[in-house]
């Protein structure tokens, strides 16, 4: 059997996971537009290959830290739709009992240490998780996801310095989607991002974040090297977000043209392109891929319906979990 056939299962899993993220986000967007979801949320659509390509090589014990645009990381690391939608809708059965919401989903059971509403806020946490693993003699690796905009936070340079000094098993995965909020990356980032990591002696890489196989191959190599104590690493993954900065960012031509958006969506879509490749390689027929899409659609539909009917947290929950051992009255 050739390598491609051996990997068929992993490829199809990656395809399915990317579709799951896209479909999750489409449903979340709908919930917002129909005023069923409290607050705002940031769509991961368009960036699926980044989270999936990387998380495919992680074990359940490996850790990730996530961002305000975190649904993709959460799904890719193994989360269930039901608990995720419940969290987005502030229901008791959500991953955080409805106390976190979209920007704070954490799924400890799958090693997701949490999304973060502070841009760059999780860089220390990721690096600390790697320190913990190394000190306690565990083999797990931590991946720190953050955006291009977050590279402007000083914390990154403090923790990369320590990670490099202490050879910590952490991978800094910078998702460069071209924008931080309503500003182009070129206007906020001087010089080269990988070069910043290289200045600390960290091996840094650049990869096409729309190509799940390229991301996956690089991640496989770097995660394996991290486990052998050869970390840390830095990856810049060039990608694109399809929606506005958040679901309410509808009229955005003042900072991003419709032509640019259309080009990425038609030429560079990570799911469509990967699907074509799978078909061309004879790893899946278009019908098989369509049936995956349909299954995922049904899974999401059921989860949304469940979450919409699920109960809100009991009032007694408001003072719980401030501390582990005291209830706030």
């Amino acid at each position, binding site marked *: 059997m050739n390598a491609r056939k051996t990997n068929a299962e992993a490829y199809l899993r990656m395809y399915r996971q990317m579709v799951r993220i896209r479909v999750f986000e489409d449903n979340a967007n709908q919930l917002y537009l129909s005023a069923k979801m409290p607050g705002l949320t940031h769509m991961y659509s368009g960036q699926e290959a980044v989270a999936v390509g990387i998380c495919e090589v992680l074990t359940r014990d490996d*850790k990730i*830290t996530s961002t305000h645009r975190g649904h993709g990381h959460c799904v890719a690391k193994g989360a269930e739709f039901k608990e995720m939608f419940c969290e987005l809708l502030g229901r008791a059965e*959500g*991953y*955080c*009992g*409805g*106390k*976190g919401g979209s920007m*704070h989903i*954490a*799924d*400890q*059971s799958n090693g997701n*240490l*949490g999304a*973060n509403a*502070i841009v760059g*806020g*999780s*860089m*220390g*946490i*990721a*690096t*600390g*998780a*790697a*320190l*913990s*693993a190394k*000190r*306690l003699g*565990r083999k797990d690796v*931590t991946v720190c996801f953050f955006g291009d905009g977050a590279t402007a936070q*000083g*914390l990154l340079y*403090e*923790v990369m*310095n*320590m990670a490099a*000094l202490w050879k910590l098993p952490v991978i800094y995965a910078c998702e460069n989607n071209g924008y931080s909020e309503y500003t182009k990356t070129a206007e906020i980032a001087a010089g080269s991002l990988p070069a910043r990591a290289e200045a600390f002696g960290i091996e840094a890489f650049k990869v096409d974040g729309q190509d799940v196989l390229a991301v996956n191959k690089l991640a496989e190599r770097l995660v394996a090297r991290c486990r052998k104590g050869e970390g840390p690493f830095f990856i810049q993954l060039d990608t694109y977000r399809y929606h506005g900065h958040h679901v309410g960012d509808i009229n955005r031509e003042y900072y991003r043209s419709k032509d640019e958006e259309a080009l990425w969506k038609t030429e560079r879509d990570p799911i469509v392109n990967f699907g074509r490749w799978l078909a061309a390689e004879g790893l899946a027929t278009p019908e098989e891929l369509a049936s995956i899409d349909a299954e995922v659609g049904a899974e999401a539909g059921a989860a949304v319906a469940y979450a919409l009917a699920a109960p809100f947290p009991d009032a007694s929950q408001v003072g*719980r*979990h*401030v*501390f*582990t*051992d*005291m209830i*706030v009255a």
Partner: protein
Amino acid sequence: MREITLSKAVNEAIAEEMRRDPSVFLIGEDVAEAGTPFKVLSGLVEEFGTDRIIDTPISEPGFMGLAVGAAMTGSRPIVDLMFGDFLFLVMDQLCNQAAKAHYMSGGKLKVPLVLRTNLGATRRSAAQHSQSLHALVAHIPGLKVALPSSAYEAKGLLKTAIRDDNPVVIFEDKLMYQEKAPVPEEEYLIPFGKAEVLRPGRDITIVATSSMVQVAQKAAVLLERDGIAAEIIDPRTIVPLDMETILASVRRTGRAMVVDEGHQSFGVTAEIASRIAERAFYHLDAPVQRIGAMDVPVPFSPVLEDMTVPTPESVAERGRLTVRGELFHAA
């Protein structure tokens, strides 16, 4: 009982807890061979090695963040923050990350870390090395805040802090590092949320924290000469705060005064005084008094600096006026 310095008491607490629990480590600037500028940690690196007594670059937000992540994943870090004034640098990691992770995750994540730092003016260190910023962190739900007032308390509270599953900020009075007090050889812990009545008295309750406990004790001696018996209560932790002990005392004495080295406005004195007013108003014979540090950046010149903090004389004077019903004239 043997007497040891507060510095030694802290050192012993850390060593004992690190021997007991291999998941405990300490991280901060110049903590290993140097043992901190105050030499509090001398000798620990020899016993525990640089793997557990970790020297960092000068990156307070960075190592604070590392501690949060380590605490979430099975470690129990003790963060050494060289000066309490540097709290402003770690605020995001402490208040937005550590304090909220347990709540935001619906109880899934735990952050068992200790942030050790200090407070206290009159070391002639000027405005950026003299602040007492405990009220700042006590304001944030999810952080416990301990304020030891002696070597004995420093050891017992720190050991409890290390075993606590929540983020705890513990402030040591840096002027007390070389002060000795009786500390038992045998192991002991001091529970959080239990105030200590340090001196009984019938005329006025003085609630004093950390560095201000000694000031209150000296004030009580001055008051005694005037025939006034002050009761002194040391809350030991302000989160959680043992209001029951304070209220029981105030209901007996009918008068209360709160003394704390944080700036007077919007701080610990205001909080405790208002709780007393809310819950013991009908037992009061005089308005609740509070004395904090002046609302000015701490000045360098000794002549000026000494004016900014409560002293035994200023506390005694206010106590006298309160007990004699002469506050109105002072206003």
